[in-house]
């Protein structure tokens, strides 16, 4: 029973992509801005133009704008090119409210890569669940706490 509820605090996403693990890893980390839905999933929304992942343990992940603003999303906690990438995750929030992302890249027999993303640690996240459950907006604004500023 405990295990079932515990898995309720974990989100997993898996997919297979037609790139070798090394290439999939590079696309995921080095060129995040080319695929991440920045307009909706960022602190600066449509003004956000870049995402930087500093390629080392302790490196920062942050979004950038053309006029030089940055906003940190997390700090890299595992860095194995072509195999695994993990980071704390607190876009729009203080680091103390970080959750955790773990992404693994595994070769498939046909030369592609299976990508497994696991997101855990939500029990750290403030009042989100209560507000989600009571029917507040469930967009990205919510995660960023922008609705608080607007209120």
């Amino acid at each position: 029973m405990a295990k079932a509820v515990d898995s309720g605090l974990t989100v997993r996403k898996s997919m297979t992509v037609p790139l070798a693990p090394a290439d999939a890893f590079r696309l995921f980390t080095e060129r995040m801005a080319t695929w991440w839905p920045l307009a909706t999933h960022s602190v600066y929304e449509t003004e956000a133009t870049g995402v930087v992942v500093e390629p080392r343990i302790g490196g920062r992940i942050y979004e950038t704008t053309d006029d030089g603003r940055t906003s940190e999303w997390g700090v890299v906690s595992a860095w194995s090119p072509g195999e695994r990438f993990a980071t704390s995750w607190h876009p729009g929030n203080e680091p103390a409210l970080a959750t955790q992302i773990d992404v693994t890249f595994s070769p498939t027999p046909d030369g592609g890569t299976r990508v497994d993303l696991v997101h855990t640690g939500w029990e750290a996240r403030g009042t989100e669940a209560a507000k989600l459950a009571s029917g507040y907006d469930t967009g990205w604004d919510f995660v960023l706490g922008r609705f608080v500023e607007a209120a």
Partner: protein
Amino acid sequence: MDALGDPTRRRIFDRLAEGPASVGALADGMPVSRPAVSQHLRVLKDAGLVSDRQVGTRRVYAVDPAGVVALREYWDRFWSRAMDGFRVAAEEHASSRESGMQIKESSDGEGS
């Protein structure tokens, strides 16, 4: 307080997932003080993951399924959207590299 996946808080939540419990009962099974357990419970309650009610003289805590489900659904949508973007980019990258190789091969063949 180490909020990043705090192991004690995770243990408290896991314990409550097995069934409702009072602060005293929770503290008995943990290597931390009752006030520390209360503090963790406050964070979990603020997060909407745990609810409490008065039973006689005791306050009993339990997992709040609505909060857990809401948060899970939220993050599920969030990562579906983000990872769809990654898949599309990976497929485009793969197909453009294939056509790039074909172009290179044919131009090599035409050369010299």
